[in-house]
């Protein structure tokens, strides 16, 4: 591996590492709550209209 490639890899690794560790949009609990709302909506629809 050339010296330039090694340097490139070091630069990229630093940035990717920071990006991987930096932030998340919303926590896992929010995924649960989105699905629960979705299921509740479907059940309500079923109750009111009797079909999907």
């Amino acid at each position, binding site marked *: 591996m050339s010296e330039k490639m090694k340097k*490139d890899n070091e630069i990229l690794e630093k940035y990717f590492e920071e990006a991987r560790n930096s932030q998340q*949009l919303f926590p896992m609990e929010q995924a649960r709550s989105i699905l629960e709302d979705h299921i509740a909506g479907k059940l309500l629809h079923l109750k009111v209209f009797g079909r999907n």
Partner: protein
Amino acid sequence: MTERAKKEIFLTLLEPVWQNLNGYARALTGNTEDAKDLVSDTLLAAFENFEKLKDKDAFKSYLFTIARRKYKRNNWRLRLFSSYDEYPEHEAFNFESRESDPDIRVDVGLLYKAMKELPEKQREAITLFEISGLSLQEIQVVQGGTLSGVKTRLKRAREKLAELLREGEKSVTVKKNGNALKNIGRNNKMTIDVKAQLNLK
């Protein structure tokens, strides 16, 4: 299977890749609100079609394939129906971040800005590989084409990104040094100016 049982199995599979999906959405869309929408849309579509997924080991590819399709569809609509003014450039790459270190926030902003310069398929491939942690084979499933095509895309993307980031680092260093000389004694001014330059909150 009841909806609630399906939900529990789905969430168990989702948890290890949740952060990866968020990173992917953020890198593709370039702003927090669109990324949130993409994650929610993907989540619901993946849940609705979950019973069709026979091999649960392929959940990761399944999820990212849906995210990619949703993004492409939304992006197409956006280009077709919105004017430039509705989606101003200054809002792009303006992420809400829990990261308290301003240097890291600046670096992450630089990375995403540089990634925006890549051709779409290269940007996708490098995001899936480096940020979302998909294997080459999984990326092949998501993007289609051959394995060597994926490898070539990644190689080119890495070369281009390294070049862009080197340039970006130089300009940030110049900016930092210039402001440091001008603003000695003013707390955090240097960081604020660099962040403003990168449109970071």
